[in-house]
């Protein structure tokens, strides 16, 4: 208890200090952000906020690994503008309020030039207003909820993302379910406490209906729930052809296991929140025959992807999941923007990130649009034999399914 309390006190003190700064006559952005960046010889600090512990710990750990690899590369090239880069990573324990606190800490104490994170939308939403307040650019590697880069109708000036949106992901899964799997009756099971889950479920529901499908049931759960049998029994009673579960891997694995125990053999479908090696560890064989949309697949034969996968394996001994790949891309976009920016002030970096065009990322070409989002392709993976295999690729915008090329090892 004591360290937690001490931390809370420090956080309160920092928050208080931040508030005082806000009352100063100059705008808060100018007050907190260093005008020209670090002194000669001092490293540039890149902040990372992630869930290094907790229910979705692999999200934060994988992202951190991807970011570290990118920063190592940049330092091997001699750093940026004569400064080496230094990663400062904080654990938010999977809690939104904690994410906001450590974002403040990165901006105020560590004088981070750019903050990377979070990957979960609810936590990125908690960070976004802080990034704007302190005038520190924030790039979220994987938060797909549209609201993350928006403040009402307005685009948040300092918040960017290098991934596609749930509007696209929902469309992709709806199209895949309706046109490829030919499902007509689908049930939804969503986490009502997660911005990501609710947003993606709504998108899927609207798109699936527009494509002529019926949504026969819409059940809910809360993060931390263990027992999903009540909802699954209700869903079973509606006899759907498939079930859409936009959740994070821990819950999804438990849900699918319990569904199979109840004799639900229909395909389960979900989004990028499924992607973690833990999914297979917890869910085991129950996961076979299910589908999820994702940002990339390590099986992609493109040289950029294969080089990244090989280097990641050499360093960490595991295949990089989607969070690792997006963390790598987000850090590279940040480094690229730093190199292009006139100086290392928050506003110059912001403009440089906003001007990112066709950056060749592992997860596809990254161009930041007017809404501070990236427009990218999506893949749909099928789980077979305890591993994800490419089932379809969807080009951006049009969302037309492209069957996997014969070169890829998909079966």
């Amino acid at each position, binding site marked *: *208890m004591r360290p*937690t309390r001490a931390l809370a006190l420090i956080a309160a003190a920092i928050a208080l200090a931040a508030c005082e700064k806000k009352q100063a006559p100059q705008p808060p952005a100018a007050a907190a952000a260093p005008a020209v960046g670090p002194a000669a010889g001092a490293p540039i600090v890149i902040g990372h906020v992630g869930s290094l*512990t*907790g*229910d979705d*710990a692999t999200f934060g750990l994988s992202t951190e690994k991807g970011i570290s690899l990118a920063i190592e590369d940049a330092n091997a090239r001699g750093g940026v503008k004569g400064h080496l880069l230094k990663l400062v990573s904080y654990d938010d*324990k999977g809690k939104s309020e904690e994410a906001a606190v450590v974002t403040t800490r990165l901006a105020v104490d560590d004088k981070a030039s750019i903050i990377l994170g979070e990957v979960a939308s609810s936590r990125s939403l908690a960070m976004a207003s802080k990034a704007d307040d302190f005038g520190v650019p924030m790039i979220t590697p994987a938060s797909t909820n549209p609201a993350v880069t928006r403040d009402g109708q307005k685009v948040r000036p300092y918040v960017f993302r290098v991934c596609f949106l749930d509007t696209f992901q929902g469309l992709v899964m709806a199209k895949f379910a309706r046109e490829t799997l030919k499902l007509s009756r689908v049930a939804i099971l969503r986490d*009502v406490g997660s911005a990501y889950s609710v947003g993606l479920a709504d998108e899927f529901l609207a798109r699936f209906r527009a494509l002529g499908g019926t949504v026969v049931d819409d*059940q*809910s*759960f*809360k993060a*931390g*729930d*263990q*027992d999903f*049998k*009540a*909802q699954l*029994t*209700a869903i*079973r*009673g509606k006899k759907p052809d498939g079930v859409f579960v936009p959740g994070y891997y*821990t819950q999804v694995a*438990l849900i699918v296991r319990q569904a199979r*125990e*109840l*004799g639900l053999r229909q395909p389960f479908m979900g989004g990028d929140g499924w992607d973690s090696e833990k999914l297979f*560890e*917890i869910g085991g064989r129950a996961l076979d025959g299910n589908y999820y949309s994702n940002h990339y697949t390590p099986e992609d034969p493109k040289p950029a992807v294969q080089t990244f996968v090989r280097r990641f394996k050499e360093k960490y001994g595991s295949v990089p999941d989607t969070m690792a790949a997006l963390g790598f891309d987000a850090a590279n976009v940040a480094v690229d923007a730093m190199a292009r920016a006139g100086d290392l002030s928050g506003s110059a970096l912001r403009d440089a990130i906003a001007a990112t065009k066709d950056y060749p990322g592992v997860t596809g070409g990254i161009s930041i649009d007017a809404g501070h989002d990236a427009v990218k392709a999506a893949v749909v993976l099928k789980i077979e034999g305890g591993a994800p295999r490419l089932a379809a690729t969807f080009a951006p915008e049009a969302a037309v399914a492209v069957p996997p090329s014969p070169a890829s090892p998909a079966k």
Partner: protein
Amino acid sequence: MTEFLQHLVNGLSLGTIYALIALGYTMVYGVLKLINFAHGDVYMAGAFAGYYVAGALGAGERPTLPKALAVTLGAMVICGALGFVIERAAYRPLRERPRLTALITAIGVSFLLEYGFQLEPVRGLPVRFPPGPSPTYFPPLLSLGEPIELLGVSIPWIDVIGFGVAVALMVALQLVVFRTRFGTAMRAVSFDARTAGLMGIPVDRVIAWTFVLGSALAAAAAIISASRLPRIDPLFGLMPGLKAFVAAVLGGIGSVPGAMVGGLVLGLTEEYVAGYTASSWRDAIAFAVLILVLLLRPQGLLGRAHVEKV
């Protein structure tokens, strides 16, 4: 109809866990008039004890019945010892103080276990202990076949086994309480500890063994629960602990059959509420049922004003 019966099966298996944890609350309340708020965390510790024993025996890789029994008994023994230590170190020194002091100490012990288990693993230990805040996955202890199919209702084997084990444990407890010298001593302490002491009953020892028994039952509940839902973490005893407390009060705190009935009623209520309305209503309605029962029957479903308490 199939759906209704399936909910019945799900609710019974959930209620079984609550009932087993509720026994620990009820027994301790019976002898000490203390709500042992650390009991949910003893349940959590039981799951981790099972996890470590299973790791030591290699029960996860090659599950066999003797190993499963060894894991369950091992966890029960470890948890019983933990219950003994908690009583000896935290509650006994405060025995003569006001009851509120003991209650606050119970909350302190609860936090100690919850946050102690979230610390970084100690270097040099053969196992990862404390386990840290990220979830851990409990290995399957038995390789069970496909669920039983009956009238379209699927009944997983683990639920059948869990229910059987729970009923057996509760019958055994009832026998201990009413058919043994120790049980008689327990009931005497529950009735009037001071007088029982004057009659030569070793009050402290009876209380210590009550904690050991209650904690061992919590460990059994934890093993059954973790076999059904393999995700365990240092905070996962919080909610089941609270629910089991509600179950104990619902059934009539101090009564062993009451804990069983209370647990099952609570499990079934939750299941039917979540199945037929929305899962967000689950806890709200379960607690509303508690309030309703307490308004109509303040002593709980099976509690009586003047019976011998356990």
